[in-house]
């Protein structure tokens, strides 16, 4: 390396320097372009699919043009069977309800596990197998989501005999726990030790000081972790396909199949009806707003914490 470098003249070296530095700029713009394109498409195409029905109606089977949707009889003077003429009808209320119920249930499961495990990792740092627990967190968050879906399927759906919202919530728990545990750990480590020492100097046992002094000091960070986990859970599709299956009707029953927004996106984009494709973009829009909003919020709050 050094020999070759010495053989180049300064002009050549300078040219190499400029070219390769330029390459890194090009690479960065290559990454930004799809990001901007995807966000723009989802916001524009999806935004145009939104209307009041989208948020207040559930699924209705598409009716080809020329058929009166109320009577099912042909309308005079209109041509039948043109798929592109099918009007957008119905909405995704069932998906919104399903996503909220399943993800919030999963959050209720994973918050205690994640926070207490995070406390263990941060407050008892000398335990010999802490590294192993951290590694397990990484494995869980790096595991293919379909594998988690298979676990939910064989562990809960099969024995229960039916798809259910609760199975989806348990599957999502596998994916949300590591996020919460790691953010809790990181944020607890940022709490200065003087706070713990002050609490103990006043005679508080460790559990009391952790729960009433250290944890409240780290509350913003823990909420951040919970929000990020929520965003991740709400966007997951593969585990839900195998656990909650999807449902065309509005259902509040966690023990029965439920719908979820990402599943609707997946199903509607495969549909031959442009009207249903519109619904797919609409659900993607809602998901995107949720994910972008949470990430921006987290960004702003963590910037404030660090300052």
């Amino acid at each position, binding site marked *: 390396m*050094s020999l070759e*470098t010495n053989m180049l003249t300064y002009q050549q*070296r*300078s040219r190499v*320097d400029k070219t390769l*530095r330029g*390459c*890194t*700029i*090009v*690479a*960065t713009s*290559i*990454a930004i372009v*799809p*990001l901007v*394109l995807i966000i723009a*498409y*989802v916001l524009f195409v999806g935004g145009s699919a939104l209307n009041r029905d989208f948020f207040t109606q559930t699924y209705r089977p598409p009716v080809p043009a020329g058929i009166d949707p109320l009577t099912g009889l042909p309308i005079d003077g209109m041509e039948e069977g043109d798929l592109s003429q099918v009007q957008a009808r119905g909405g995704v209320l069932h998906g919104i309800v399903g996503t909220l119920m399943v993800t919030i249930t999963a959050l209720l499961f994973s918050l205690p*596990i994640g926070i*207490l*495990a995070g406390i*263990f990792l941060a407050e*008892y740092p000398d*335990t010999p197998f802490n590294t*192993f627990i951290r590694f397990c*967190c990484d494995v*869980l968050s*790096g*595991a*293919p*989501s379909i*594998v*988690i879906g*298979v*676990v939910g399927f*064989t*562990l809960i759906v099969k024995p229960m005999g039916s798809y259910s919202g609760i199975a989806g919530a348990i599957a999502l728990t*596998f994916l949300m726990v*590591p996020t919460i*545990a790691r953010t809790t750990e990181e944020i607890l480590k940022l709490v200065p030790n003087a706070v713990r020492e002050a609490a103990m100097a006043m005679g508080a*046992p*460790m*559990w*009391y000081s*952790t729960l009433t002094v250290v944890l409240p000091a780290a509350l913003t960070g823990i909420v951040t972790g919970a929000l990020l986990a929520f965003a*991740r859970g*709400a966007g997951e*599709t*593969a585990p839900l*396909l195998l656990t909650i299956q999807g449902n065309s009707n509005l259902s509040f029953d966690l023990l029965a199949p439920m719908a979820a927004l990402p599943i609707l*996106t*997946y199903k509607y*984009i*495969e549909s031959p009806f442009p009207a249903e494709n519109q619904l*797919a*973009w609409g659900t*993607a829009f809602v998901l995107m707003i949720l994910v*972008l909003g949470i*990430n921006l919020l987290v960004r702003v709050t963590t910037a404030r914490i660090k300052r």
Partner: protein
Amino acid sequence: MADANAVPRITASRRWARQTRHGDVFFWLLTLFFALMIIGLVVAVGVVTYTGSAAARAAYGWSFLWGTEWNPVETTLYPVSFGAWPAIRGTLLSSLIALILAAPTGVAIGIFLSELCPLRLRQPLGFMVELLAAIPSVIYGLWGVAVFANWFNDWVTNPIAESVGQFVPWLAGPVAVSRGLAITGTILAIMILPTISAITRDMLQAVPNHQREAMLSLGATRWEVIWGAVVPYARAGIVGGIMLGLGRALGETMAATMLIGNSTRIEESIFYPATTAAALVASELPNANDPLHESSLIGLALALFGITLLLNLIARYLVWQTARGPAGEKV
């Protein structure tokens, strides 16, 4: 004279409080329980997929992995048979394409963000790249199917298939549908870019400044500093980041299911539909009535989990080793 009353009476409750260190033992046990539960979740994934795939493993053994016939439905021509090779081949090839596209780009982005980017741009650009990781995979799939597939067909697939593809069988056309290994690999590349670039950036930022200063003082250009003194120092960590990206590409489900075409036939050309392990499981497990079919799909999930576990193990070790600094150095 010591008064007997001056010595505090040690009541049972006090002794209990002292023995449990005023409840700290319980708190330790409680948090320990939940921490161990995380290990339990990983073990559960392993055990469930292992026992669930028992029938397939008993029927095929290791040859399950390279059996080329995947026929869940009995036909006159083909008997029912479950060989994972079409799925494994599709997984490996699509991830390979993703890696070829994303590894150099991701490392370059990491270098830019850590070494070259103006300080004012570093935060927002880093955030934008990380945002790519936060977008749900189903949205990548949606965009890929509805928008990107047409462009890819017009600008990449058809020109290549009509020119080079005439002579090179694995680039051959004709391309009827815009589903296949190539487009899946391209979308996967976009999806794993943030993983690779974020870890590269973190690894490069962990390189001590005296590395850069020493090289600069020898009269090196900025690129020579980066390539000669900074990147080699962080090489193991960067390789770890690429492996984590590979792990993500291997297990990615929704984008692959929507874009790869879900065909279990083995075609030579990368522009033809294929399938990946994750896509096959996602599309067939809900409808698998035959126990052997179901067990084979769970076996695929087990293989996926095993591979990502191994990749994670090696990658985390490399990243940890780099972040720690070279052996013997204490800063």
